[in-house]
């Protein structure tokens, strides 16, 4: 069987999994929202209207207005951009670091391996959320800083995963064959080992994006993430908390968006896991 048909096989299995398809559809929907925000809301997300402070959902403002009279739907649609891209970029950084460290540790073994894995152990000793908050206190909150920090504090799982895969892959016959043909370390790592780790990484990455979105929204909710007036789902919820006794819509809708996105990524990730490795199904 060629690699192509294995890939097609996985895609077919994935498309037959209704939950994974539903998850994918939800994410797609939010991406469409993020790409064409003005199609979905005619309001300006930053237009303050003191006459319409905290008005409940109505025809002109389907999801109500916030404590500055701004349209919540408009802010959520524009916030989708921020939340989705933070999740994506942060997880890409995490995957990059995790891949590099995992491949090096698994392939070279010995002292390189134990040094790198001790480093992973040390990083895991820090409650991630504390570490992220501490670093932000020093370098300041901005979208780029948030992406960077979530990435550099979230790669340890990927590194362990890649290391374990690499450890078993490097003993396989095809690696021995490549080495016998005179392939160097770099070629073996990138041409023979790396492509075979991609399936589990794809699963980890999909679930990781969900995790990164949760962290970003938590940070923004606490006021240490994406800074107003830039809308993010997390910082709309901050207003929801401050006005919890008068404006339920400020708390309910942005959280629902976070929940659905995270659920979508999780369903898709589990679906990919089952599709690339049917043995794991139902575990």
């Amino acid at each position, binding site marked *: 069987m060629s690699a192509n048909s294995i890939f097609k096989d996985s895609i077919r299995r994935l498309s037959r999994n209704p939950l994974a398809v539903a998850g994918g559809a939800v994410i797609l929907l939010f991406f469409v929202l993020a790409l064409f925000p003005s199609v979905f809301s005619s309001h300006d997300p930053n237009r303050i209207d003191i006459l319409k402070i905290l008005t409940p959902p109505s025809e002109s403002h389907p999801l109500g207005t916030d404590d500055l009279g701004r349209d919540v739907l408009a802010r959520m649609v524009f916030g989708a951009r921020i939340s989705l891209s933070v999740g994506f970029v942060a997880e890409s950084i995490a995957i990059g670091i995790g891949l590099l460290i995992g491949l090096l540790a698994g392939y070279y073994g010995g002292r390189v391996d134990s040094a790198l894995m*001790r*480093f992973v*152990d*040390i*990083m*895991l*000793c*820090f*409650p*991630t*959320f*504390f*570490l992220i*908050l*501490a*670093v*932000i*206190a*020093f*370098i*300041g909150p901005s979208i780029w800083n948030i992406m960077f920090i979530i990435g550099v504090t979230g790669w340890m799982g990927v590194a362990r995963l890649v290391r374990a895969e690499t450890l078993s892959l490097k003993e396989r016959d095809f690696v021995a064959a490549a080495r016998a043909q005179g392939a160097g370390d770099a070629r073996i790592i990138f041409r023979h080992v790396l492509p075979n780790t991609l399936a589990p990484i794809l699963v980890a990455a999909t679930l990781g994006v*969900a995790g990164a979105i*949760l962290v970003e*929204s*938590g940070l923004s*909710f*606490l*006021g*240490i993430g994406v800074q107003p007036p830039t809308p993010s789902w997390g910082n709309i*919820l901050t207003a*929801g*908390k401050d006005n*919890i*006794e008068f404006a*339920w819509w400020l*708390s*309910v809708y*942005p*959280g629902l968006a*976070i*929940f*659905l996105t*995270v*659920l979508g990524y*999780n*369903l898709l990730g*589990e679906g990919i896991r089952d599709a690339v490795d049917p043995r794991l199904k139902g*575990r």
Partner: protein
Amino acid sequence: MLRYVLRRVLVSIPLLVGISLITFGVINMAPGGPIGISSDLNPKATAEYRERLKAYYGLDQPLYVQYGRWLGRMAVLDFGDSFSPDGRKVWDKIRERIPVTLSINVLSMAMIFLIAVPLGIYSAVRKGSLFDRITTVTVFTGFAVPTFWLALLLMILFGVHLGWLPISGLVSLEHDSLSLAGRIGDRARHLVLPIFLAAFGGLAGISRYMRSNMLEVIRQDYIATARAKGLPEGTVVFRHAMRNALLPVITILGLSVPDLLGGSVIFETIFSIPGMGQLFYQGVMSRDYPLIMGILTIAAFLTLLGNILADVGYALADPRISTGRTG
């Protein structure tokens, strides 16, 4: 056993050094080191604070001397003075907050254990049943719910809408005038939502974990043997299967310390609970660097302690570990 514990502690020493190096690295991450923090970002870094920090870190010394001196202070829990107007010792501020956070976390861990373990066992034993499917869906949904959003929803429902539970603080205003039973009830009412929310993430994860462990164990030969010799199903499930499936859960509980601590920042802030998480949050908001570094160090230390306790607990439960025999 004692030798095992000793060995486990000794192995942690390099980790402790690593933790201190990273913490020290974070302090020096700000452009220009701890006192170079630009003033527009940090209006609190006045000349006076700069001088105090300079003296505290010994910034006129080479980096390795700074690290050595800083490490020496850490060892005796001297984190310096807080930047806040009261200017108290950081360790004093942290110390009075630890009991609150610790007791909420211990209670939520107990709740996780008491609910998630039976849930996981029952789901595994009745795999594929309606109950199993409902828990599976609930757990999966639970993974995707942002805790702080759930907190807001529960506050709206139980606090604002129904008025059953208070939504902020640890005690009511009239707490001191209540009878002893009244005080206990008052405190319990304030703790219901925070403890549930602190436990929420763990509930989903651990019940799922317990279920897959149980499913794994039930397939083993010794379970088939137990059934074959005619033992009642209850004995098979609780004496043979559960004991073995529980072992890894002990480890997971120990390893969940960092998540619980991280979560405490969010729920202590939401519910205005005066614990370590809230103190940390206030420190970050006011850029109280000595306080931030102090809490970060202590949190990492507690995590390491959780890891050690997890390993020791595992070794107590499974003697093969400490004697070095496997299989």
